[in-house]
């Protein structure tokens, strides 16, 4: 579009030289068919292309590409670091959980131990008390038995005495005189039987 107006300008407004040039240009373009084949412009294009490529190459290789590579590497490093850190934290969490479980298990066994110990202590105390009580009971029973035996012995003695004296009285009142020795023997015989 711009070229259209430009060539129109050249042909109408400007001087003879310009007009001639424009006409020549058009003639050349028409004969060649396309501006791509106007070999007169080749050195110009090639020169500016080389300048452009050298500038782009220098900018890219000196500034842009090292910078982008550094940024990408840094990001990669950051990501790797973060991942490693996350992994470490995870390990720590697992270790903490293990420690917690261990502590819990330890506490539980300790509690069990204490319970068992206390139980055993109480049992021992109880056993001792029971044994002591048993012994006391046995002593008391023996004492009582002894007392009972004494009482019984004194009662038997009394029965002997009473029987003897009663027998002697009965014999006396019957009018017979018995000798004391014989009476005693007879009474002993009877009481025993």
């Amino acid at each position, binding site marked *: 579009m*711009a070229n259209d107006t430009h060539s129109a300008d050249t042909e109408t407004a400007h001087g003879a030289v310009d007009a001639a040039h424009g006409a020549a*240009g058009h003639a050349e373009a028409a004969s060649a068919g396309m501006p791509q084949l106007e070999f007169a412009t080749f050195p110009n*294009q090639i020169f500016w292309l080389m300048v452009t490529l050298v500038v782009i190459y220098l900018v890219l290789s000196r500034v*842009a590409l090292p910078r982008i590579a550094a940024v990408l590497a840094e990001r990669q490093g950051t990501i790797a670091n973060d991942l490693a850190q996350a992994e470490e934290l995870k390990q720590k969490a697992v270790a903490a959980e293990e420690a917690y479980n261990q502590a819990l298990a330890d506490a539980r066994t300790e509690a069990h131990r204490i319970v068992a110990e206390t139980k055993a202590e109480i049992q021992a105390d109880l056993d001792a008390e029971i044994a002591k009580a048993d012994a006391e009971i046995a002593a008391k029973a023996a004492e009582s038995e002894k007392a009972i035996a004494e009482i019984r012995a004194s009662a038997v003695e009394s029965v002997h005495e009473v029987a003897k004296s009663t027998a002697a009285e009965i014999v006396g009142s019957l009018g017979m005189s018995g000798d004391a020795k014989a009476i005693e023997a007879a009474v002993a015989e009877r009481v025993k039987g």
Partner: protein
Amino acid sequence: MGKIALILALVIVAAATLFLQPEHAGLAIHPMDQFEISPLFGHGDISWYTPTNVTAWMAIAVLCIILLLVVGTRRRAIIPTRTQSIAESAYGFVYKMVEDVAGKDAVGFFPYIMTLFMFIVFANFLGLLPFSFTTTSHIAVTAILAMLVFLTVTIVGFVKNGTAFLGLFWVSSAPLALRPVLAIIELISYFVRPVSHSIRLAGNVMAGHAVIKVFAGFAGALGMFAFLPIFAITAVYALEVLVAFIQAYVFTILTCVYLKDALHPSH
């Protein structure tokens, strides 16, 4: 937002076709005028150092590359901004291409290949702006780019492999009788490489731009029915956007393929 813009554009097109009828609705199509090279100052002859529209649009391409890759990454952020993200994607895209296609020992050529890619991609996309000039539509430019690649590859091939580089042309897996024939074919295809490499890029870019201009010429001639070529222009433009990237990609990946041949010439 997009819908409103679309409706607005259609209304403007309709109004323009109704009220802005050209005084003489003739078929005036100059599809090739857009490729003309003119001096920036004055109307003199074009010598090798004259600043021309080629200079201007190459300078704009350089400026855009610097804006994207240098200014865009100036913060060196771990969490990138949008511009830095684009710069990093471009870096990763080309770096991965070099590494995957040409091999790990070719990463030394990465700045060189990145230069080619960035220049072509920016020249192509800048050429899609209305009233702009497309430097890559000129065979002189693409031929130089292709010749640079060809010379680099050939020199690197001989420097790295010595005469073993000629094994590239001697297909040792083929039967012995066929090898000389294949060698001739391989040799021809090797020297045709820069031709196809350069014409592919310039041809694609030039053809698309010329087609748009042709349709634009129809739009001027059709009056009321100008919306038809305008829709066609929209479609071709969309295709051109694709082509602009794909041709830069193709040029770069072929460079990598040729480089691989130079570094590992065995078949």
